[in-house]
């Protein structure tokens, strides 16, 4: 246990003090931080360079089609209405021709022009429509309400009653009861967490394999293996890697969480779905991250110990990486098709190579029974320990194997010959 603690401490510090760890964490945190404040930042810039403030201060041209508006009182009442409804804006009646109005808008003298063709038809002239431009929508809505009120008045409904009617939307309350997991809600956070799990295992698994291979390359391994038990070394290394990975994800996602909750865009979208993620999902993320990571990291570490040089690693780990990528692709396809409980996915829930990802997806997006989860996790835990012990033996054997990089069948042969 003491050896394990020493190995763990040494390896964990090596990970978190490494330049790549610091760089990825800092960049990840910075990206999350910047992303969360970007929309606010852009809107601030927009106003600073002559956006909404100026729009308000410039008078809005209002023109009436003289063919349909004969009575000047009608025209004045429209303008009065607009001025009352939109106090921030200055509405100016104009006699200019359409082409002159267009010219004014184009040159930036005015930002908006409203052309009343008739009481029912209104035309806006703007230079361009920006996404957050609510001016057109609001004017249209206000004029609509006004028209509805007038119609109601003709039916003899009092203004106050009419306004009450128009303003209240909810005469019938509706709720939707979904019998299965709400896939639209869970899709995005499952997608993001699955991807994070995939990336973390891939990145740290390879890092551990490289770490072991470089120990072998520098021949430090013979000193290590003769100073400490291989199980202490292997478990210490892999668990330190898992924790470093978890710390990194925690820092990046933590920054994202804090930034988003403190920024203006925290309502709606993927982010709020992530934040509103059920607690039990987070617990499952933790379980599958740890188990999936340990399972693959043990394999990667064992393979790393068989490499002669760091350059040999990619060749050795390709088959296992392929299996891993296939598991990820299977999950992605199942998620996209909406059927995460297919027969194939059910089988894969019990296969340790695929179960960390498959079980996680089925829990968040499908209908999985508790016994299935328990059996899947028990099998995975058993395999993690079995692979850990086997990896320790391969690691011990790897130290004495130099020369040609062994192929998988060579390892099996050696195992049979009880060399390890």
């Amino acid at each position: 246990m003491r050896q394990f603690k020493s190995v763990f401490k040494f390896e964990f510090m090596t990970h978190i003090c490494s330049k790549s760890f610091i760089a990825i964490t800092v960049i990840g945190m910075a990206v999350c931080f910047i992303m969360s404040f970007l929309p606010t930042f852009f809107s601030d810039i927009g106003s600073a360079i002559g956006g909404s403030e100026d729009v308000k201060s410039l008078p809005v041209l209002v023109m009436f089609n003289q063919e349909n508006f004969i009575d000047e009182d009608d025209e004045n009442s429209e303008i009065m209405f607009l001025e009352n409804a939109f106090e921030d804006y200055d509405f100016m009646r104009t006699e200019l021709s359409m082409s002159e109005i267009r010219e004014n808008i184009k040159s930036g003298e005015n930002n908006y022009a409203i052309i009343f063709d008739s009481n029912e038809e209104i035309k806006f002239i703007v230079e361009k429509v920006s996404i957050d431009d609510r001016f057109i929508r609001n004017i249209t809505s206000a004029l609509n309400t006004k028209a509805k009120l007038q119609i109601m008045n003709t039916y003899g409904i009092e203004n106050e009653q009419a306004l009450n009617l128009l303003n209240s939307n909810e005469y019938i309350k509706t709720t939707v009861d979904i019998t299965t997991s709400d896939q639209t809600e869970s899709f995005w956070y499952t997608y993001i967490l699955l991807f994070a799990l995939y990336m973390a295992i891939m990145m740290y698994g390879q890092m551990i394999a490289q770490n072991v291979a470089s120990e072998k390359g520098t021949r430090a391994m013979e000193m290590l293996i003769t100073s400490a038990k291989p199980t202490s070394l292997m478990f210490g290394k892999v668990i330190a890697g898992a924790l470093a990975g978890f710390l990194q994800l925690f820092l990046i996602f933590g920054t994202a969480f804090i930034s988003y909750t403190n920024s203006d865009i925290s309502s709606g979208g993927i982010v709020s779905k992530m934040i509103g993620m059920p607690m039990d999902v987070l617990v499952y993320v933790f379980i599958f991250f740890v188990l999936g990571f340990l399972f693959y990291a043990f394999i990667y570490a064992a393979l790393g110990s068989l490499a002669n040089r760091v350059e040999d690693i990619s060749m050795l780990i390709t088959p296992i990486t392929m299996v891993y990528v296939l598991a990820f692709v299977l999950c992605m396809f199942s998620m996209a098709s909406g059927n995460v409980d297919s027969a194939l996915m059910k089988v894969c829930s019990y296969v340790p190579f695929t179960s960390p990802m498959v079980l996680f997806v089925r829990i968040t997006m499908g209908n999985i029974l508790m016994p299935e989860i328990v059996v899947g996790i028990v099998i995975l835990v058993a395999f993690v320990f079995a692979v850990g012990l086997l990896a320790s033996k391969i690691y011990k054997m790897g130290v004495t194997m130099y020369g040609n990089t062994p192929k998988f069948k060579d390892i099996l042969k050696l195992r049979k010959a009880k060399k390890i």
Partner: protein
Amino acid sequence: MKIEIKNLYKSFGDKEVLKNICLSAESGKALGLLGRNGAGKTTTIRILMGLFEANSGEILLDGKKYDREKMHIGYLPEERGLYTKKKILQQLVYFGELKGMKGSEAKRCAHDYLEKFGMLEYENKKLQTLSKGNQQKIQLIAALIDDPDIVILDEPFTGLDPVNAKILKDEVEELISKNKIVLFSSHQMNYIEEFCNDIAILNQGAIVKSGKITDIKKSYPRNKINIGSNDIKEIEKFLLTNCNDLISEVKIVDENLFIELNDENQRNNILKQLSENNFDIDTFNVIEPSLNDIFVEHTVEGI
């Protein structure tokens, strides 16, 4: 303390690499393991270190079954290597901790050794910044940091300059004087002769010669004689004319006279005849075979 290896066999697949190895080493003495490359020295050491399991045979410590887990063994592998990109003190402390020391204790011992080897200034430098010889000294510290009972040094002198070799020599002598069991594997016979009371020569996985160096040397015929004198030419002439039947070879080598006798018991007879004829003799000594000669003789048919 006494460690005994009895009837050790080991094979990798079909290849038998150790055949009936029997060795013993005692506290306060150094045992030299000699053998050509691939003779089985490192495999024997690795079995002792618990890296391999023997197919058969046993290892005893003071007559009881040897348990690697309970032993403090300092091991300097033939292939040197530590963490090249880690600071020296940091990795020495790590190795100390792996061997069961407390962090503070390991730090103190590492510090003491660095000071002893004159390397204190490098404690916060990365290993890769050091020369090969100095890296080797760091590795030796990593092996000895927990004051082990058994010290196994596999080719410790390769790559060392004379000054560093002297430091290592002093350290090995100190280990022997501190009653440690020292197992020494080397190709450099002069060092083996200097430190080791006992040797075992391995060839093709089997021990072909073992025992005390002095006994081994004495077991060879003592029929080769070296004579130092101002009259060697006259002595040569005298011996060729008067004692030709006793002698198989006479030649002058480096201004000394080398004689090989047919029978080692005729040494006194020759000495008597030379003194009776008033030859002025400075030295008259038996030439013992060098360890190198013994090694070559037993391993020439090796791998």
